[in-house]
């Protein structure tokens, strides 16, 4: 090998090395030195629980299906992500593919129990979802990852009011504390009373502050941002109260077991046979399900009909003025809803819409009758054989269903 040949390769090699170094300098080092988003004024740091939840989120690979960036074109995901949103992140979780919804604004959209139930059994809340069940997570992991999810976004638990620097989620409400007394506690807006309070406060002056749905009168400021002493609790104490006052999964389960008989009837198929045996005498199963569904219809007419329409097609008179129209239960997707799903939607409402939380007004039993009616309406695309039945009075105790109305002749 002579010297000439050597130089022939060495100079191009050095040249390429220099080009590569220059490019690395430009695209890796310069951004590192110059691109430093400022500490955000509308976000606090993670708590240790939220950080543990972030580790669980990473460990379970959630970010392979859920992205963590709300893009300009994502119309329904809330505020667009900005660089300072990621200030406290040690590693990024932006994701590269969305098989599920974006989670950058998930905090505050659903109550904690919704997340827990959704992680345990996604299909019970979203029929047809391809999210796998994560029921193998320990309770600790489940709570941590829920805390992490609730911390995200401009309505999450980490969100601060940029003007005062106080937590945006803190809210003073009357709540039953663990000892059983009713006290005024600071509570997160994604928890109990979320919909009611949000509507009440938002109606005061939404137009003056389009970027935040709350009016900053002295009274509301005290309510929301906590200038009073109750809200000066430490972050941890506030969170503890906020989670403790929610009904737990166990309580919900118990409520359903008490109504095991009614619940069993809600699990049956409500599809009317093509040729209905109209002349059957006595209590047949068809009569039974019609009777139970008709009980629910009484509740429905009083509570739901104004928006969803008396036949369940979503064309109630109140629906006309809504930005998000009331659901049309004749749509195919509702046929697949399970009892759990219906029950949950009725009891907890649908956050982000005007669907209220009926758990404050309906007993679990009444809700189950309503579930029966919803199943009947969605599976038969309308009132079907209930049309001719007497409209029972709302509030009849279930035992009176023994003297059931007869099907039409």
């Amino acid at each position: 090998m002579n010297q000439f040949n050597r130089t022939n390769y060495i100079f191009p090699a050095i040249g390429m090395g220099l080009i590569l170094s220059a490019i690395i300098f430009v695209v890796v080092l310069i951004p590192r030195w110059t691109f430093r988003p400022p500490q955000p004024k509308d976000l606090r740091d993670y708590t240790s629980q939220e950080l543990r939840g972030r580790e669980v989120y990473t460990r379970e690979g959630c970010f392979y299906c859920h992205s963590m960036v709300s893009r300009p074109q994502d119309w329904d995901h809330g505020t667009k992500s900005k660089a300072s949103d990621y200030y406290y992140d040690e590693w990024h979780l932006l994701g590269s593919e969305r098989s599920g919804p974006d989670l950058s604004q998930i905090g505050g959209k659903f109550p904690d129990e919704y997340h827990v139930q959704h992680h345990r059994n996604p299909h019970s809340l979203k029929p047809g979802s391809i999210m796998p069940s994560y029921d193998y997570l320990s309770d600790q992991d489940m709570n941590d990852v829920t805390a992490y999810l609730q911390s995200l976004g401009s309505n999450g638990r980490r969100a601060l009011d940029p003007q005062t620097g106080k937590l945006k989620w803190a809210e003073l409400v009357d709540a039953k504390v663990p000892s059983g007394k009713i006290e005024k506690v600071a509570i997160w807006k994604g928890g109990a009373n979320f919909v009611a309070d949000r509507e009440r406060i938002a109606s005061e002056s939404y137009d003056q502050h389009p970027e935040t749905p709350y009016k900053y009168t002295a009274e509301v400021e005290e309510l929301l941002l906590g200038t009073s002493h109750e809200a000066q609790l430490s972050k941890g104490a506030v969170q503890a109260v906020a989670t403790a006052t929610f009904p737990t999964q166990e309580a919900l389960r118990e409520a359903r077991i008490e109504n095991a008989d009614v619940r069993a009837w809600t699990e049956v198929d409500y599809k009317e046979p093509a040729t209905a045996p109209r002349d059957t005498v006595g209590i047949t199963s068809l009569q039974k399900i019609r009777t139970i569904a008709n009980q629910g219809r009484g509740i429905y007419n009083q509570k739901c009909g104004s928006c969803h329409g008396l036949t369940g097609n979503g064309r109630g008179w109140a629906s006309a003025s809504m930005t998000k129209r009331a659901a049309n239960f004749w749509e195919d997707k509702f046929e697949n809803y399970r009892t759990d799903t219906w029950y949950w939607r009725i009891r907890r409402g649908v956050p982000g819409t005007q669907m209220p939380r009926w758990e404050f007004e309906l007993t679990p039993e009444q809700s189950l009758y309503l579930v029966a009616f919803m199943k009947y309406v969605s599976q038969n695309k309308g009132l079907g054989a209930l049309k001719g039945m007497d409209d029972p009075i709302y509030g009849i105790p279930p035992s009176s269903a023994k003297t059931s109305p007869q099907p039409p002749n």
Partner: protein
Amino acid sequence: MNRNEGLDSSLSWVDRFQSWLAIEGSASTRFLFSGAFWGLVGTSLGLLAATEYWAPDLVRGIPQLSFGRIRPTHVNTVGFGFISMAMVGANFFVIPELCRTKLYSEKMANLLMLAWNAVIALGMFALMNGYTEGREYAEYPWWIDIPLFVALLLYIVIIWGTVLNRQEKQLYVTVWYVAGTTLWFPVVFLIGNKIFFSVTGIGDSIANWFYGHNILGLWFTTNGIGLTYYFLPKITKNPLYSHLLSIVGFSTIAMFYTPTGTHHLLQSPVPEWLKAVAVISSVMLLIPVMSVLVNFFLTMKGKWNMVVTNIPLRFFITAMWFYLLTCFTGPFQATRWINWYLHFTHWVVAHAHFALLGTFGFVAWGAIYYILPRVSGKQWYSRRLATAHYWLTLTGVIIMISALTVAGLYQSAAWEEGTPVYRGGTYVLSPFMATRAFSGLLIVLGQILLFYNMYKTLFSREGSIDGTTEPDDLPTSGGKI
């Protein structure tokens, strides 16, 4: 065959191990064999993940097999296990040939093989048990990154030792690519894996995608293209069409591939100038790609009919057609407006499989089919199995890419319209996901055939069952592994 043939059984196990390490040509074979093994494992993991897309609760209650853990395991196992090991094995055959010398150190290369296998196995264990850094393509935790980095350093020593000991004055294009890659990739690896360089916040995504795209650009592409530069002229016995084009392709690849990473973040809040640099260089990538492909396809002039009879050539040519398609859709989908529409959809997943499975997977398989008889001194056990492997894989890749592409267009159209596909009662992508899982089944079947064929070739005395005569210049020595 007695695996210890030629080794004195009276020696202690340490000596026997050392002579096992020193068998000539064994490192290449063992690397190729490991590559095929990890290919089987990796594609099976991919099949499982694909099936979970269609049947989410398939393995309910087993955390190790849940989708979020299987997906990184699949990606890292096929990337670092299958494709990388097969390519390193091919380099250990090709570079000594081109330098007319022996591999610098067979022992070192075999130690590298053991270490690399250990890293991949340990990596699988780590990822399936939730030890992950959570950054795409860099999921391995630090206690796997560091051995892998040391392995890469060892690899530099072996390749450069061979190149510097060469008996041939001229350095062929393949040597530039392979020797260059050995130096570039460890740098990229260091930056991407937070070993000495770490950024927090959204800046981490820039570093992550710098690495994520350059593992393709400066590792798989440069190795795969370099190998094809060797194999095409070698198999067809045509001279390389243009030396000048190969210089153009080589010198522009490092220039235009390196800054493209940020095109994965076009709608994220990262600096706009960085996005502009990424988009421009992504489009400029057409220069190295075109120069390489024009060179390859013109080298094939008059010899296209060999694709029918020559199995390795068939794999290489298929790979290059896939490369053409990948590299034409790549710059196109990296531009802002197309990316606006296509980002976050299954289209991108299809593109990744186009590049890694369709192009570099096929290069790795072609290299395996070409090299194995020549280092082992044995004809392939069955040509028919090899043909079946080719057709199964090709069909699988085409079905997979079509299904994912259409699914991606579905998703993006739904987003544009404002009703994401995951809303509503049923998951409309389900049929596409079922099709994709089926295509995965075909690919896994192909891998089983390849592995069986390879095993029979290396470890049985039967010889070829259907009279394969593809390498007519089979070496008389060799065959030990």
